């Protein structure tokens, strides 16, 4: 995975609340067996509206998306994170995210930034004219107008993002601990092994 350090550029001032993963990428696009190419299907229904945000030349290729509360709610489809990444988005800023979506985003190097609604409202204004800067190392979002919003992020996720670390590789380094747990389980709860059918 590519390391994520700073993200700077235009942002889509989207702002909608409860954006579910069916809106981000409709089910018809889930039939792929590969991770790439889903950007074409991102926000498909919204893009049918003339003059929509995502097809406007003004915002094309923006690396940041600003959304409302509970972004990414609904299904567990990781295709939502893949679709956003495929359309060039590197970070989403919102007052809250669904648990599953933020996990999926993290695992694909897509940064989710949680900021209070007032900060999000202000960034929505700025995004209409100017670019936004996200500094992961210092956990701060800034604008050309001296706005400065700090955000919290899980230290482990931050570490992995900054260094582009693969989570499976990290876990496999704990193989001995997993094997020890399995041995204990076989002794304490032998009935847990599923019966063969």
């Amino acid at each position, binding site marked *: 995975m590519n390391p994520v350090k700073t993200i700077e550029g235009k942002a889509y001032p989207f702002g909608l609340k*409860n954006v579910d993963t069916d809106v981000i990428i409709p*089910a018809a696009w889930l039939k*792929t067996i590969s991770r790439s190419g889903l950007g074409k299907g991102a926000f498909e229904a919204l893009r049918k509206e003339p003059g929509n945000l995502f097809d406007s030349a003004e915002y094309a290729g923006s690396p940041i998306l600003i959304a409302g509360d509970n972004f990414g709610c*609904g299904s567990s489809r990781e295709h939502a994170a893949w679709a956003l990444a495929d359309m060039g988005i590197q970070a989403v800023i919102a007052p809250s995210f669904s648990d599953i979506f933020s996990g999926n985003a993290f695992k694909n190097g897509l940064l989710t930034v949680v900021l209070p609604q007032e900060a999000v409202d202000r960034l929505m204004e700025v995004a209409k004219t100017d670019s936004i800067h996200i500094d992961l190392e210092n956990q701060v979002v800034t604008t050309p107008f001296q706005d400065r919003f700090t955000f919290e992020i899980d230290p482990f996720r931050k570490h992995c993002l900054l260094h582009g670390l693969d989570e499976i590789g990290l876990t496999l380094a704990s193989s001995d601990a997993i094997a020890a747990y399995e041995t204990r389980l076989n002794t304490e709860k032998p009935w*847990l092994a599923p019966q063969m*059918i």
Partner: protein
Amino acid sequence: MNQPRTLYQKIWDAHVVSARDDGTCLIFIDRHLVHEVTSPQAFEGLRAAGRTVRRPDLTLAVPDHNLPTTARRDASGARIPIADPESAQQLEALEANAPAFGIRYIGDADREQGIVHVVGPEQGFSLPGTTIVCGDSHTACHGGLGALAFGIGTSEVEHVLATQTLQLKQSKSMEVRVEGEVGPGVTAKDIVLHITGVLGAAGGTGYVIEYTGSAIRALSIEGRLTVSNMAIEHGARAGLCAPDEKTFAYLKGRPMAPKGADWDAAVAYWQTLKTDPGATYDKVVVIDAADIAPSVTWGTSPEDVVPITGTVPDPASFADPSKQEAAAKSLAYMGLEPGTPLREVEVQNIFIGSCTNSRIEDLRAAAAVLKGRKKAANIRWGIVVPGSGLVKSQAEAEGLDRIFIDAGLEWREPGCSACLGMNPDKVPAGERCASTSNRNFVGRQGPGARTHLVSPAMAAAAAVTGKLTDVRELIA
């Protein structure tokens, strides 16, 4: 004396492999269900990295999302080709990946095939006190048995396949206590729709919910699976119902459940799986069962719930400006006017099925309303999709299929079907569907489709009258 613990805490503690200083734990996963939509890229990732599946014995693969619900094999047993090449490709990928990685596979023509969340409990693969994951957000369903079950994304599917663990931080705990007795015509689905209306679509975000109270204890296991199934619709990653004698009776003798002395040891352990007196939850919500009516959604979020006796709300009636805007958009999409009684809303389609409501009890409830009745003339399309081949056989043995067919509905093969329309079962644009599924999102049942979430009995009532209907009027 040990600190009193919640059920969630007990299951969590029993699965910690190792813990980091920041609170992230490596959690052992007891059961992994795999389906064809969220797994191809995970298997591809394993191949690319030269990794294997650590515990194929704890993994079960079942295709469900893409399968047509019409006949799958011809008279000679050969597969009838799936029209959509991409659906066929996903099915073929799972059929190849499961044996290649040594994973047990229940295929499209096996009588045990069905929706993963119906198959897991039915086979006794899902057990109380276990951690269960699947690349599907409705995995919380298995919490109805007292399992800590939750949906994961494809990278996590790959992580579990490779390591049989996940790196997780513990969620907060919430108790949703439903006390009292529900009235006639009120089912598990109405309880969970009501809970979703009360909590809101994000009310459970960051929490694992334990559903407690006399109304939950009174539910059958099928009913508890229905309630837990929709935990994600109020934002909770997992929902739990403490296991009890009903749970043990449900599981006893299931093919993959423990047998003999193992069974006794398992039950002894499962009996300890309850929240200790004095344990505290981070949040408690109490609901009076008497407040719950047969319920229906009017909008495009599962939180948009009203009693069937209610009316379509005026967007201006919401305090939150962004909810006002969302409600106005929902009503435009749904083609509804504020103030319209829900009971006057005509529907053209009926879908009885999905991991929420496709178990035998659901089909019995729908059949009880439909028996001796016909669908209304304006019902263009109505399908009943059993949750598994075993549910289908059971329903046929009880003659339920005849009741549905005589009423003018179609009796189909098991799968996810019109819940999300990945297979050919879709609701046409602009038409309404009374649906027993779990999501009324924009375009969920097909582009432009308008979904009203209801219980199986309510869907059956809508089939009879051709509009959203208070089932109590038909069962009185």
